[in-house]
């Protein structure tokens, strides 16, 4: 089964990834992502019945630590790299209508 990647598919993943693309980029990615998806489909040749997925190289279970109060990053440091901040907060565009 060779999946044919369409321009609409790329538009969809660009939306999921929050990436604004130009028309030229959309065109180029439809081609290159299509090639890559076509290549990775060779995994279908492999029989993986009864194989457990391996999410991690070191298969750790939960690592617990004591719930202790510790100093955290000072607010000024945390905000220092923000593109916009005001009065100790990250500043974002308005998301609610004024009524």
């Amino acid at each position, binding site marked *: 089964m060779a999946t044919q990647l369409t321009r609409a598919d790329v538009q969809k993943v660009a*939306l999921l990834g929050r*990436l604004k693309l130009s028309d030229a980029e959309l065109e180029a990615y439809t081609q290159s992502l299509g*090639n890559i998806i076509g290549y*990775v489909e060779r995994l*279908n040749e492999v029989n993986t019945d009864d194989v457990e997925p391996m999410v991690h190289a*070191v298969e750790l279970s939960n690592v617990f630590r004591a719930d202790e109060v510790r100093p955290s990053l000072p607010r000024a440091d*945390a905000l220092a790299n*923000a*593109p916009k901040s005001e009065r100790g907060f990250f500043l974002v*565009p308005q998301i609610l209508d004024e009524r």
Partner: protein
Amino acid sequence: MSILGATTNELRVRLERGDVTSVDVTTAYLDQIAVHDAQVQAFLLVDRDAALEQARDVDAKRQAGHAVGKLAGVPVALKDVVCTKGVRTTCGSRMLENFVPPYDAHVVQRLKEADAVLIGKTNMDEFAMGSSTENSAYQVTKNPWDLARTPGGSSGGSAAAVSASMAPLAIGSDTGGSIRQPAGFCGVVGMKPTYGRISRFGLVAYASSLDQLGPFASDVSGAALLLEVMSGHDARDSTSVNVPVPEYSRSVDEPLAGLRIGVAREHFVEGLDREVEAAIRTALDVYRKLGAEVKEVSLPHSQYAVAVYYIIAPSEASSNLARYDGVHYGHRAKDFSNMIDMYSASRGEGFGTEVKRRIMLGAYALSAGYYDAYYLKALKVRRLIRQDFDQAFQSVDVIASPVAPTPAFKIGELVNDPLAMYLSDIYTLSANLAGLPGICIPAGFSGKNLPIGLQLLAAPFQEERLLRTARMFERETDWHKQRAKL
């Protein structure tokens, strides 16, 4: 002997004896950078005054008779993927053009505790995504052996810096071969330790189940020493494993008796350059002469490593890179119509071509309807790849292979054909998928005088064995002593 030609150990001895000061050593490397980096373009940031100040502090500490660290006064270059407090860290991306971290990465702390001199930040493929360092948003690093060729990637800046004697040691990160392949292309030693050996705290994340930091050096002993300084448990990275750190630098010169070296038949197939194959076969003969037994092993699923990697790594990346939202840090677009548009415009402008490609590839593999077919399938084949290695390491101690199918390729040769670029990672990806340690050491030159790298892999946490095996070869050869003529 000149400072630039000295190994890390020779530098340490001369610093300890007082034959040279750290200011002398640091100045020599800074001068080399000043003369040659306009050509090589290995560094994104060099702060001469700050480096010399560190050197003066270490010299003063030593002269006052205080105990000094294991890397006292020795310069180390850092891939620009590790956070340095108060020093710009770009990850090779426009997204982080103005990012100044509020803390040091764990490895940076370790280097400071060891009294190393941090000499600069090196160039890399954007967010460590690439195999040639051409994906940097800032500059294209050149291979010191042939300036028309790439140094490999993504840690191409660190590899080129050591190769061009601009630093005796450097740190890189390796998610799919990003330390070992550039080490091979540039004719230096590069090592990716076991997943969990070194804390990833402060390492800018690409694919978290695969990312691992590691050392570059001009010889195996230098790599052993830097690994020793970098390794160990850190509570801030819950995947860093709490097992004792051997004194790698102490045991590295001891040869291994009864060494069994595995050679996988799947590694010697179509696509492997003849000169590379010949160099690896010659290396195996060197080991045979040293009394090692060379045995064939089979890694039947290794042919699927590229497909598995280019599903898993982009999937993890698409999740990790969601943090770049134009709100907390990083680039924010000037023009946008609403909040969602601000995210999309900021990310569209801040990320380069390959990063966007991998984010979308990951989003595709994880999206509804495709998750089982791609992501879950890849995780299952990942286990089969690991099981192949577990099986092979029942009968051999290390597995030897080329590090890449060819010597360094030309700048521009593969950059417009992403799939061809991905396929060049065929020999290195499996170690990340399986979490194994691997090292690349110089093992010869092509007819065009390009370095050829020998890769050695071992079972998890067998770094000591790997380093000793590598050193056995290095002692018999002088490939590592060759330096590019700039």
